[in-house]
């Protein structure tokens, strides 16, 4: 079963607007990561946030983490056409001695010119 679920499944916005994607997960985690995927091929790591952090920034990306609600959000500010891609959250399980990393179902983001 999926550890993380993204919301919305698909998002279409105008270039220049901000895009917000949400991720919910089920079990306790050590950290949460966000990835981007173009054209259904390999994923690229965007940002990692640890369970003791609440917010993290990287360029136009802002990630928040609320462990009490078991949720995270990814905000992309001032979107560009090149941001069109699928975005996935990924989590590990903090109670596992050999933790696998589980991905959510993803949000497909389309930026309209």
């Amino acid at each position, binding site marked *: 079963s999926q550890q993380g679920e993204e919301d919305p499944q698909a998002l279409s916005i105008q270039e220049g607007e901000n895009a917000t994607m949400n991720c919910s997960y089920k079990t306790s*985690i050590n950290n949460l990561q966000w990835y981007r995927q173009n054209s259904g091929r*390999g*994923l690229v790591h965007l940002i*990692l946030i640890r369970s003791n952090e609440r917010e993290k920034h990287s360029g136009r990306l802002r990630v928040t983490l609320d462990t009490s609600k078991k949720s995270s959000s990814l905000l992309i500010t001032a979107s560009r056409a090149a941001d069109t891609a699928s975005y996935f959250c990924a989590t*590990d399980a903090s109670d596992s001695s*050999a933790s*696998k990393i589980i*991905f959510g*179902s*993803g949000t497909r983001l389309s930026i309209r010119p």
Partner: protein
Amino acid sequence: GAGVSQSPSNKVTEKGKDVELRCDPISGHTALYWYRQSLGQGLEFLIYFQGNSAPDKSGLPSDRFSAERTGGSVSTLTIQRTQQEDSAVYLCASSPTPGWGNSPLHFGNGTRLTVT
């Protein structure tokens, strides 16, 4: 430096045939993961290797699927007696540190498997 390499990039096979998919991780990365992604879907965890520890095979969908990692480096995912529902992109990823997700995963470009 070289990234994660997967081969072949595309594979078309007939139903019932066996296939082998190869993954060359980044040198020195101890963790290696296999995922499967059906069209328009998320990533489904298949198997996880960490150093010399026994692999976590909990995601393998059936006994037709198996994977090996030789010498802690190259990994091969084998699918026996392929079925049409096995058609998907198979993604490999490696990481320099053990589980816990402390380091990002580095992904290959995947093998697109089509079973006819």
